[in-house]
């Protein structure tokens, strides 16, 4: 069996691994790098539990080969908190009870964090539309949307304070 050597940056650290061409990015993250915060819900590109950032864009890591991410800058849920301080989206999910079982949460948080970089002041409709690729079987989405709205507010205030 042929293997490929891939090198990428994951959560700011350079990593390399020898993988089969058919290895998915999510397998590389979970099985080689033991970053098990990224979940596999469906493995069929539907649920978004596996969402990570590749070069600053949210993607489903179950539907991209590790080889396609060679050279890329990848961020997972483990890389969101900085120096032990939760990211505003993580904090807002905790504060506003944006989860029940928590299985979808890593994907929801990564997806929402991407939205708030691209659209710092989204309407409720824009939040719901953006999260179409993330399925939650517990919450009914209501508190997830509320959490994203509050995180947006926090991030805008932080940005303003920094000016």
């Amino acid at each position: 069996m042929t293997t490929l050597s891939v090198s990428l940056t994951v959560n700011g650290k350079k990593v390399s691994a020898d993988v089969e061409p058919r290895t998915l990015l999510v397998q590389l993250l979970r099985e080689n790098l033991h970053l098990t915060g990224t979940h596999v819900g469906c493995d069929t590109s539907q649920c978004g539990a596996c969402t990570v950032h590749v070069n600053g864009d949210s993607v489903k890591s179950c539907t991209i080969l590790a080889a396609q991410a060679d050279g890329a800058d990848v961020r997972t849920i483990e890389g969101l908190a900085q120096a032990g301080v939760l990211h505003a989206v993580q904090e807002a999910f905790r504060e506003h009870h944006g989860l029940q079982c928590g299985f979808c949460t890593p994907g929801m948080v990564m997806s929402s964090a991407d939205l708030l970089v691209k659209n710092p002041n989204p309407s409720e409709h824009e939040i719901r539309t953006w999260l179409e690729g993330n399925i939650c079987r517990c919450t009914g989405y209501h508190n997830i949307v509320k959490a994203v709205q509050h995180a947006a507010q926090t991030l805008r205030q932080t940005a303003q304070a920094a000016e």
Partner: protein
Amino acid sequence: MYAFDYTRPTSVADAVATLASDSDATVLAGGMTLIPTLKQRLAQPSQLVDLGALPGLAGIRREGDTLIIGAMTRHADVARSEIVAAALPALAALADGIGDAQVRHRGTIGGSIVNHDPAADYPSAVLGLGATVVTDRRQIAADDFFTGLFATALEEGEIVTEVRFPLPKRAAYVKFPNPASRYAVVGVFVAETGSGVRVAVTGAGPGVFRAGNFEAALTASFTPKAVEGLVWSADDLNSDMHASAGYRAHLIGVLAKRAVATIA
């Protein structure tokens, strides 16, 4: 997934040569269709030729009255392009309505039209605008490109490099999305182009097609009223768990009228 080899060529010539030397090799673009297909073991390519590193295949530019989109341009880039918003807003809106954010961050226009899923959005714009599909070896008119269910005029090993859209006087796309996948249960692209009115329908049949009676009516009068009561036969349309052929036929009329209403 069955095992396969993987190459990431850095020139179109190399990619074409690899494909020519191995008839079981397959092109990989965004992977949004191909990777799920491989997971289901519905295909067993010997190797994937990843177009992801080819220079110049991703990009958007305007040359006079033509909008040119590289095959590897992602849906998200078309959706948020200022060039597309100014030149052809209907196409930006179409791209923004594909799947979900994560799919739009990977899926490409080339992959979408080559795959020619009967429910895909882009084929309706390519046919509805009378675009030209450019490959490594020739140019193919939209009217000749889509040949049937998941089928196109591409030869084995031929690579789409860009799509050239002649800018219309006005155009609009309206779809009835499947609530889960966002694929079109039916989608109608209406355009008044330099060479007449074109109406392309996706989602309804075994591939994208033009609705001649709607085109004739809109040529006579480009108003929502002109298509009122027009009927498209349900005979060759799809029936599945999402909609019957009769319902799809009905949607063609409703969506065509809505599309015209947004630009009349």
